């Protein structure tokens, strides 16, 4: 019986399976193919390709020959996709394609910057707490536990409400919330490495703590953390989506995927695509981040990367 990955995410693929399988179970085949022991598989690269595309479009949105995302009345309201407007228009006659691409900007900025905040602050705290297991570690983890004691979305809502709705404040809120869980993960991998022979050897050679942490432990902690970070970017994108779905992220008329899904909700009977297009784009993006992060994690740690 092949060993399952401990977190139960994916099962080992039977030998000889490759990514070329097509058919009804395409998705299943993709998942299976992507988890082969050697090579990351075609599905992984498809996910990376999609993420790359979304990032490129988000970065170069301003340079693309697009309608203005916020201009109303470009066409009649609720034009179905396919004609002059490739993806149709929304209720205010705005170009759906432009809004989707500019919405990607919000999602990508929030996803990457908030997790960057989490990695820098949470990573530092986790390294310190994991290396100095005594009083410092206990205090840091106590504070971390308090923040984990708040339901995340509630805290994010509260922070954004009280700081005011803007892209910057959404990044701050979600970044702040990512500190505690990231600190936890980094701490546990730091503890695992700080007992290893090469750390003991470095200490025996007279290396100072700072050097041990930055030169011996950090380089080992970083790779699995980056794999986790991809999954966290997905979580941050979903969190921003939830906030903007409730109308509490960036202010309208700024396009965001969650906001578009919410605006289109009213028109589900007449023009379902207004809601369902951003929903599909967001789903694929989140899936791609999850899948890419997960494949990397399985590959970096054959035992499945214990949290």
């Amino acid at each position, binding site marked *: 019986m*092949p060993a399952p990955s401990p977190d139960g995410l994916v099962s080992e693929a039977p030998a000889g399976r490759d990514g070329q399988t097509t058919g009804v179970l395409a998705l299943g085949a993709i998942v299976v193919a992507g988890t082969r022991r050697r090579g990351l598989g075609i599905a992984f690269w498809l996910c990376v390709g999609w993420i790359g595309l979304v990032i490129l479009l988000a970065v170069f949105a301003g340079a693309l020959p697009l309608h203005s995302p916020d201009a109303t009345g470009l066409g009649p309201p609720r034009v179905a996709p396919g004609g002059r407007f490739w993806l149709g228009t929304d209720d205010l006659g705005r170009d759906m394609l432009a809004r989707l691409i500019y919405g990607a900007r919000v999602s990508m900025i929030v996803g990457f910057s908030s997790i960057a905040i989490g990695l820098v602050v949470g990573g530092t705290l986790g390294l310190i707490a994991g290396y100095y297991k005594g009083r410092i570690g206990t205090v840091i983890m106590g504070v971390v536990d308090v923040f984990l004691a*708040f339901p*995340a979305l509630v805290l994010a809502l509260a922070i954004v409400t009280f700081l005011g709705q803007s892209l910057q404040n959404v990044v701050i809120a979600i970044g702040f919330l990512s500190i505690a869980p990231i600190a936890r993960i980094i701490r546990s991998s730091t503890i695992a490495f700080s007992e290893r022979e090469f750390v003991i050897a470095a200490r025996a050679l007279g290396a100072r703590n700072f050097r041990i942490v930055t030169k011996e432990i950090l380089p080992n902690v970083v790779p699995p953390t980056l794999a986790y970070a991809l999954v966290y970017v997905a979580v941050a994108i979903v969190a921003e989506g939830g906030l903007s779905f409730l109308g509490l992220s960036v202010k309208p008329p700024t396009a965001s995927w969650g906001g578009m899904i919410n605006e289109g909700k009213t028109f589900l009977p007449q023009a379902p695509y207004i809601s369902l297009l951003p929903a599909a784009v967001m789903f694929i993006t*989140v899936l791609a981040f*999850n899948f890419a992060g997960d494949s990397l994690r399985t590959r970096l740690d054959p035992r499945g990367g214990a949290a």
Partner: protein
Amino acid sequence: MSAVGTIGRKILYLIPVLFAVTVLTFLLIKLLPGDPAVDILGPGATPAAVQEIHHQLGLDKPLPAQYVHWLGNAVHGNLGQSYQNNQSTVSALRQRLPVTIELIILSQLIAFAIAVPLALVAATKPNGLVDRLATTAAFGFLAIPDFILGVVLVFVFAVHWHVFPATGYTYLTANPVLNLKAMTLPAVTLAMASLAVYFRLLRTDLIATLQQDYIAMARSKGLSTRYIMVRHALRPSSFSLATVSGLQVGALIGGTFITESIFALPGVGSLAVQSIYSRDYLVVQGTVLVIAVGYVGINFVIDLLYTVLDPRIRRAGAIA
């Protein structure tokens, strides 16, 4: 370490957490740009009226005294009142809490009712067809945010097929059938993420349990696979499921905010969201306090149950 010692230590640990949670919730209203008194009275407030409100809310005292004053009121069931409709926060919560609790319970029933049997079947034959399909589906479901799932369910079952209503809530006491009908889509929306998490966890733990010697023993005695799965493997495999279902409560609470908003359910989540819209800060603060303290409490109880249930943890005194 004895069971009593472990429980005592956990209670000691609970105190600073509760203290910090209440302080943070208290400070939320301090972060507010501007003056809550002006928010309550409107822009044309006289200085005397502002002073009066400050005095009412205890805002004219130093911060620690304000905290004690606020917490004392909260403990006595006074979380202030809405300046919109003068309803007290506590009575609003009392009215809306049953809706949210029903929603959470229904969603968890759905999640367990599907996840447990599915995990049992999948783990019986790892890498079999059922296992691969279910594992893939679970991975996909984890990538569907609840607000997307809710909208898609509304589109399919309310707009397209007219099977379930998209909005319109009937209280359980008024008409149980209509209530369940109105609750179906929200509960399914909320259930899906937990379902995927529970399935993956239980499947992995089951597969690990099935490697144990006593399972081989049971097999060699000629017991049927079904009997072994249900009677021998399920219980020892469900401990992490118990912990995670407790941790899941936090995600569920966030989920109720969104789900209740999509389906217009009169629960605590929609109360919080509406109060945020109308800048009814005392209600927001009160709701956040009740949610956060409730969340800490639930996790504490589950942690405790877990310690009592699993002798290995009781002895090791692990999982702080």
